[in-house]
């Protein structure tokens, strides 16, 4: 799997490309851990090019979300493909994460919901 990164002023973006299985999960975990080291992380994970996710990938995302929310931050997801969305639905993860169709919408959502 390939992982891309972009850092904005207040928002970090991760791009996941390919397959997020147990093999790839460790790399994604490292990136998320690095991002959530910040006092308050506003992270967007772009999944437009993510073809596949297993429970190992979900586990890493959930651990990151728990950590981010505890620090008043968030991890928001964008562009889930239908099959990946289906896996999120079965796992009950669609109700845990804020999800957006487009990366822009996920980015904008942070400025709207700033308290």
């Amino acid at each position, binding site marked *: 799997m390939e992982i891309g990164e972009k850092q904005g002023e207040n928002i970090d973006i991760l791009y996941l490309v390919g397959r997020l*299985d147990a093999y790839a999960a460790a790399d994604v975990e490292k990136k998320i851990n690095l991002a959530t080291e910040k006092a308050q992380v506003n992270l967007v994970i772009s999944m437009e090019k993510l073809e*596949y996710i*297993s429970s190992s990938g979900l586990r890493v995302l959930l651990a990151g979300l728990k950590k981010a929310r505890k620090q008043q931050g968030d991890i928001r997801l964008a562009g889930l493909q239908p099959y990946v969305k289906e*896996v999120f639905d079965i796992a009950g993860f669609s109700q845990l994460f804020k999800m957006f169709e487009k990366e822009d919408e996920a980015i904008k959502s942070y400025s709207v919901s700033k308290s």
Partner: protein
Amino acid sequence: MALDKFEIELESKIDNLPVISNFVSETLSNFRADESTINKVQLAIDEASTNIINYAYSGASGTLKIALELVGQDIVITIRDKGKPFDPMSIASPDVSQDLEHRKIGGLGIYFIKKLMDNVSYSFDPREGNRLILRKKLSIGTSVQ
């Protein structure tokens, strides 16, 4: 005549998961399964293999055998390993309706297997090791190759 049984044997390593996945999608395309069926079987086998690698062998080296067979209208998947006895059915399913605070991290792989397959059975034999059999009804895809 079309072949109706395919088997792969590989080392129990996490790096082999993509190899397993390719084997599954190629074999199921051969069975003319539709995309949704391929995705579901791929995920179930990926989860079962991940458990074998991480728990049955606890990261130690060993072998993993996967057979895909077409029996009537069913895809029958047999996964064998010689690691510690590990019955995936003994793992409790997570409560997927829990909110974030109460949501436990774990148990999802087994939950996917049970949820996505029509039937799951496990047995252990001291000589043969662990054997997990999954069944999934074959849905034929519309695309013709």
